[in-house]
């Protein structure tokens, strides 16, 4: 066992973990943050993406001990403490950017990373950036719309609208 500490959604957490524990297991099982989903567990689907030191990573493909001393952000930290959704979450609701919702935490975290890098992405940039996030319900159109809207752009400019 190794003792690790990290900042998760602004709070310092410390725990003893087995070296082989994945970051996603640490978040879900040790901290109870079950908003980060495990879709495939083979690094394909992107449901488990979180931010580690501001960078988008697959938490099923990183060990918890490797995130020691890092700043970690998950879906639970995206809304305001009173439950008010952030701009990306609100846009997913407004534009119905989900059906079953399983991929949504990963989509929101990936979108946040994209908009941090590229504040006004094109439709093509959004689709390319979300290549690693699978949705098996929506066909992506409303997800792309939601991200486009969250960046403050007019969704009527998107192809097919």
């Amino acid at each position, binding site marked *: 066992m190794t003792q690790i500490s990290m900042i998760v959604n602004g709070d310092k957490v410390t725990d003893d973990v087995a070296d082989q524990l994945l970051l996603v297991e640490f978040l879900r099982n040790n901290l109870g943050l079950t908003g980060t989903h495990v879709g495939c567990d083979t690094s394909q689907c992107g449901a488990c993406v979180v931010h580690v030191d501001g960078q988008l990573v697959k938490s099923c493909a990183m060990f918890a001990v490797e995130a020691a001393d890092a700043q970690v952000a998950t879906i639970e930290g995206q809304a305001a403490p009173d439950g008010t959704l952030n701009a990306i979450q609100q846009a997913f609701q407004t534009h119905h950017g989900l059906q079953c919702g399983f991929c949504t935490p990963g989509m929101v975290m*990936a979108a946040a990373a994209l908009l941090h890098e590229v504040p006004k992405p094109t439709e093509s940039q959004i689709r390319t950036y979300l290549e690693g996030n699978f949705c098996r319900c929506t066909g992506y159109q409303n997800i792309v719309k939601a991200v486009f809207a969250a960046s403050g752009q007019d969704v009527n400019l998107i192809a097919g609208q």
Partner: protein
Amino acid sequence: MYPFEIKKPLSVDDAVAALGDEEAQPLAGGQTLIPTLKARLAMPQVLVSLSRIAELQEIEVANGQLLVGAGVTHADLSKQTGSYPALADLAAHIGDPAVRNRGTVGGSIANNDPSACYPAAVLASGATIVTNLRRIAADDYFCGMFETALGQGELITGLRFPVPLAAHYEKFVQPASRFALVGVFVARFAQDVRVAVTGASEEGVFRWREAEAALADAFSPDALAGLTVSAAGMIDDMHASPAYRAGLVATLTKRAVIAAG
């Protein structure tokens, strides 16, 4: 996941010492290794994490060469658009954004996946693989699918890329995995042209010497007219037949030459 120990050395010397254990294996970004461990395709008892070794993170441009530390991620290398644009462009199109934030150049080259992108860049650039023990020329390094010249406990510390006058990597993406179904890297230097192909051969990355000779005479897509590679020894899987891959090699080489300009 089965139990194992993760060591986190802070220097190459300490990492090499830890790798002296026969049961130990280096852990770079883990984007290939962690899924491999989950599937029990490898079961090392000790992982030596390289992520905290500062000397592996360096990027430097010197004497017409780009020096890339083995621990540099695809995302960081993708920002080197000024020093080696074709290599930065290759790095920007590996996997997906989350993979690029963790995966490293050294990890990819050590693994030598037959469909990985970097081996084509390393071989076409005539790069040098620097380890804790020696320097290995790219032509001597790749020894077939998942096989390299690295010895037991030998660690890649960096890569030295001669920067070509013009270059381009053209990839035909396998859309599910986003690996190269076939990828061709063309690099034009003052004295010669090098063409390296990944994703096609059962022997892993290789140089297409006939194309190199033709392009050395005239660096234009027309110089490749009628030139083909044999389908013998090409990878045959559910995604593409050997003949299809052989066809892609010729087509992608032409496209790479056009794009390199």
